[in-house]
């Protein structure tokens, strides 16, 4: 059995707003203050093979950003394990943890907040490699120039500050920073959402070039289905903390297995579609503080049955490589 680059097993994350002293006190006096728990990610499992590009798609509250941050090591899961190249990274510390952390890097969404405004570009990119001993301090300048050239930035600008660059260039600096520690896996969290359309194309092309040149694996988180369709090998769709469908990209766009995926695909504006003529899906995305019982999607689902209200649908394999969490699949 080949070792996957990434294995996520039953990962959950809850954000708990604990009761403070006043709330506990009033509870004793009869008030019914409850702890607020947000189930940002609820029992998610999947694997990514080396060299694959997996797109992770969903709307607000689906937990994709939280999941991405857990994979990148920024947040710790409340439950479950994350294995990078077969090794459990959730329970290590010391040098092993550092090595594991450097293997998985993240590219962030906001090109303005993701760079330290008071550091020069060469420090932003060169700090971690020097601190972790990847390169000796004497070679920092040369190394930074090399990395900058690789992402399409003029190495002459390495002494500049982030505010002197455009959004697209800043995103490239973020990519350079991640590449400088020689990762094998990149998590891209809506990395192109904040960029202009023409710059998006440049950055998407950069991602594809880097994958070919450096043999990288990607988890590409986005709400933009057309970009995900273009760049991914497989797509994972999430809704309110759970996976609802997993599928190879071309098969997904031919036929969907989950009503939410169907709705998403219908709603994506496409240049070919002139004149809206379909009934968009009704209802709001529920609050993660108070998710619907059973299948999270049942209040908005046009095919909801009684069973959907009470029973949680499990993610099952529908055909080779395709998974869906929907009771409708059992009917087939």
């Amino acid at each position, binding site marked *: 059995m080949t070792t996957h680059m990434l294995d996520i097993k039953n990962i959950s994350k809850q954000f708990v707003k604990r009761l403070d002293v006043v709330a506990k006190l009033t509870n004793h006096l009869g008030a019914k203050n409850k702890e607020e728990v947000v189930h940002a990610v609820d029992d998610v499992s999947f694997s990514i093979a080396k060299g694959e590009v997996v797109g992770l798609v969903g709307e607000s509250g689906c937990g994709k950003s939280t999941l991405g941050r857990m994979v990148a090591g920024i947040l710790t899961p409340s439950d479950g394990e994350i294995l990078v190249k077969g090794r459990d990274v959730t329970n290590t510390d010391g040098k092993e943890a550092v090595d594991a952390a450097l293997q998985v890097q993240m590219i962030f969404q906001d090109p303005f907040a993701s760079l330290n405004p008071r550091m020069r570009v060469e420090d932003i990119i060169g700090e971690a490699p020097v601190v972790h001993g990847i390169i000796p301090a004497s070679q920092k300048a040369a190394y930074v120039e090399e990395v900058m050239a690789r992402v399409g930035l003029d190495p002459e600008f390495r002494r500049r500050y982030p505010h002197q660059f455009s959004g697209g260039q800043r995103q490239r600096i973020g990519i350079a920073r991640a590449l400088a520690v020689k990762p094998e896996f990149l998590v891209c969290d809506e990395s192109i959402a904040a960029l202009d359309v023409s710059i998006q*194309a440049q950055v998407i092309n950069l991602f594809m070039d880097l994958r070919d040149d450096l043999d990288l694996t990607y988890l590409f988180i986005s709400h933009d289905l057309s970009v995900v369709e*273009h760049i991914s090998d497989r797509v994972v769709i999430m809704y309110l903390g759970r996976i609802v469908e997993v599928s190879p990209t071309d098969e997904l766009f031919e036929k969907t297995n989950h009503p939410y995926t169907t709705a998403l695909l219908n709603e994506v504006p496409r240049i070919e579609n002139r004149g809206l003529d379909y009934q968009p899906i009704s209802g709001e995305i529920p609050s993660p503080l108070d998710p619907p019982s059973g299948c999270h999607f049942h209040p908005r689902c046009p095919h909801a049955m009684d069973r959907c209200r009470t029973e949680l649908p499990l993610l099952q394999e529908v055909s080779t490589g395709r998974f869906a969490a929907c009771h409708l699949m059992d009917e087939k």
Partner: protein
Amino acid sequence: MTEKPILEVENLETHFFTKAGPAKAIDNVSFTVGKGEIMGLVGESGSGKSVTGFSILGLVDAPGEVVGGKVLFKGENLIEASDKRLQELRGNKISMIFQDPMMTLNPVLRVDTQMIETIRAHEKVDKETARQRSRDALAQVGIPAAEERMRAYPHQFSGGMRQRVAIAIALLNKPDLIIADEPTTALDVTIQGQILYEAQKLCRETGTALIWITHDLAVVAGLADKISVMYAGRIVEQGDIDDVLDHPVHPYTIGLLGSVPGHNTRGTRLHQIPGMTPSLFNLPKGCAFQTRCPFADTTCTEDQAITRPIPGRAIRCCHPQREAAQ
């Protein structure tokens, strides 16, 4: 015999006079919008699309200033209108919807208070009638249990709902023209779909003209009747929506359409427009796009006139990629 258009913008010029020098945020922009028509104003950041919307309503603050051209709203030139006249029109006959609904909504006032206030600012009606109209407007934009939800504060609504309330406020006084500045950019896809659907339905039913400002060509494709593409403060291509999207003529439009992932074979490198939008303080002489245009040559350094190769189509380019015969 077509009716007179609701809005005619002619040769609009808005300049920003800053420490670093003057910037032509809007340079000779012209378009018309007829009754019940939806026009998409498309461009990337720095193209001047938002400033166009603000210029129409006289909302451009220092150091910006509308320095030339005409904005004819039902024949009346808004550039020369007094502050008092503009105040009568804003929120009444011309409304605006912003990207962030919290720019419309006051966080410390209840929604019903704000809506009633909007109505009574322009018309002498009693509170009960105003309340009734507000309730109807909220139901019109698809807010369930409008009577109850009206009494809530803005922060008690979700993002999509807030934007709908903002749209309802824009519709309260039955405007003739609505200017929407990226209203769905920050919303989820499924919510965006709902709002686009309702916006189009409303315009068809009430005959309101709509200018939809966005950077998303796909949104405009589904919604608008005509489109104007802006680059560096100028309209570079303009015309009927199907015509422009299926047969683009200006290299920028072609490049923009080409770089959309849906227009490229899956897995291949996307066509990209090289370089970046030039700073408004540093525009090249003549055509603004020449630094990135694959067809540029020395003729591009002359000022580009607006040509009309096909009736209803306008472009500003010296190397149009299709002949007028198409």
